């Protein structure tokens, strides 16, 4: 292929990616934006086979590898439950970072003259790509709840992290200086370790921010890889993701009321927490589905606060049935959606959209909070951290400073919970012991079905 034509295709693909990101930032154009991005990526992948100066080595192996990647990636993306989507995104991000690091390593190992600038870019790719890979694996394990969602802090942890960081930087200098292969291997391993140590102390509630940040990291890794390979397209695409990812991370942190700095350097500042000092059995008021139905039946305004537990129990449809029933009785029903309800910003909107909940009933936190004093009953379905007053009252707890839904202002609060187990952030919720709180234990879907049946009988 003519090299100008090839460069032109690269330009078209870069424009596709800009339009994709632009499209994704508005609801109307989002789906089309994503398809434009996919189109651009496909064109780019096909064009590389016809690159000027292509050697056509390993073509069959390349095609088989791509096919294998598709066979792994597509079913994973299609079959994943919407509730588990955040960890899948984390995993996809991690493998991308790993791929970028491998590409730079291959280029480094190939016989050609090494110049210092390219070696520095290689070092950057290996370090950040490896951090992104191992860090994403840890976020996956946290979100999948294979490992604890609490911050993992061990004595002297910050010194271990600092030592790893210094070791990584030292090895980076060594690689640039010597140009050898062994130092690069050591550098990769140290970076993998640093990625693990970096994410371990992050608490459950902050994991989405970390995923977003690692996403931006991978973007920058790809850009540096583009420098190594002398590819404008990779530089542009990687930088776009790096820049937009950084902004997105800041927006997310702002929506959750978290400081980005605090999240990132949690590794250096986190102290071992006193774990649930008051773990004693305290009296709570639990009610039957009939009690709940009666409370709801005589209410004038009901706000439903859905949380991750609702999604886990697949109770979206049942909760909609309940809302429809109440609306039919002339009761004003709204859903109070916390920005990070679920696991990531906007996650709950996706989950409720899946159950065809009308969009007008979904009310954002800022709008719903002032209405709680006029609300008779708040039904908290499988949520905990987003209504936990500790975010306001307990400085030093992992969610302190996060804006919450002020459900305690309402007349009655009903919690549908499986157990007294604390939420994702692992903190006790004082509201559960409040006098106006009623607890209905059990699987959210079963409990809701019982409530719906008793409501129908009333």
């Amino acid at each position: 292929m003519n090299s100008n034509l090839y460069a032109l295709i690269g330009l078209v693909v870069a424009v596709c990616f800009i339009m994709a990101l632009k499209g994704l930032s508005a609801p109307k154009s989002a789906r089309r934006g994503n398809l434009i991005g996919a189109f651009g990526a496909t064109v780019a992948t096909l064009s590389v086979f016809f690159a000027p100066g292509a050697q056509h080595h390993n073509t069959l192996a390349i095609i088989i590898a791509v096919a294998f990647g598709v066979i792994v990636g597509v079913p994973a993306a299609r079959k994943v439950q919407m509730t588990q989507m955040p960890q899948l995104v984390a995993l996809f991000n991690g493998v991308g970072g790993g791929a970028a690091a491998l590409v730079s390593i291959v280029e480094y190992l190939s016989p050609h003259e090494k110049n210092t600038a390219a070696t520095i870019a290689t070092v950057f790719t290996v370090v950040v790509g490896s951090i992104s890979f191992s860090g994403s694996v840890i976020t996956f394990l946290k979100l999948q709840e294979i490992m604890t969602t609490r911050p993992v802090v061990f004595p002297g942890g910050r010194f271990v992290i600092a030592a790893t960081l210094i070791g990584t930087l030292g090895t980076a200098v060594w690689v640039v200086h010597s140009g050898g292969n062994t130092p690069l291997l050591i550098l990769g391993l140290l970076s993998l370790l640093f990625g693990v140590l970096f994410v371990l102390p992050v608490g459950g509630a902050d994991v989405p921010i970390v995923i977003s940040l690692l996403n931006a990291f991978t973007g920058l890794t790809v850009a540096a890889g583009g420098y190594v390979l002398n590819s404008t397209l990779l530089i542009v695409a990687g930088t776009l993701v790096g820049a937009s990812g950084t902004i997105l991370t800041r927006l997310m942190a702002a929506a959750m009321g978290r400081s980005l700095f605090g999240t990132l350097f949690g590794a250096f500042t986190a102290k071992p927490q006193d774990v649930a000092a008051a773990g004693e059995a305290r009296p709570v008021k639990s009610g039957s589905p009939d009690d709940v139905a009666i409370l709801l039946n005589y209410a004038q305004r009901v706000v439903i606060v859905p949380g991750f537990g609702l999604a886990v129990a697949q109770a979206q449809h049942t909760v909609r049935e309940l809302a429809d029933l109440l609306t039919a009785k002339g009761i004003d029903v709204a859903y109070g959606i916390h920005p990070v309800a679920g696991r990531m910003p906007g996650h709950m909107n996706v989950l409720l959209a899946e159950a065809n909940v009308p969009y007008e009933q979904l009310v954002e936190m800022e709008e719903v909070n002032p209405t709680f004093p006029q609300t008779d009953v708040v039904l908290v379905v499988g949520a905990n951290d987003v209504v936990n007053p500790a975010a306001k009252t307990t400085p030093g707890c992992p969610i302190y400073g996060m804006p919450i839904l002020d459900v305690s202002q309402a007349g009655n609060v009903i919690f549908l919970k499986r157990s007294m187990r604390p939420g994702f952030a692992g903190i006790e919720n004082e509201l559960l012991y409040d006098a106006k709180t009623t607890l209905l234990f059990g699987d959210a879907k079963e409990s809701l079905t019982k409530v719906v049946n008793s409501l129908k009988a009333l």
Partner: protein
Amino acid sequence: MSSIVILTIFVLSVFIGFEVVSKVSTTLHTPLMSGANAIHGIILFGAIMVADKSTTTLTTSLSIAAIVLATVNMVGGFVVTDRMLEMFKGKGGKK
């Protein structure tokens, strides 16, 4: 390519990246993150580039591994983003 050209491309891309997402609503944070995630799967382009000229067993195996990982990132990323966005349409509401 000269370093100054590369720097120019880099800086301009940073500004475009900042600009295009600066007004996104919280509702779309998750799909946008996922879409951006798919876009950096374009490292597949680079992975194929290095595999294409690789002649030793070591570099070939590493680049083939990179191709598999990058394909999972890119294809999986776009598919899962599309699935998410599919749910935003066809509702009675304003979106």
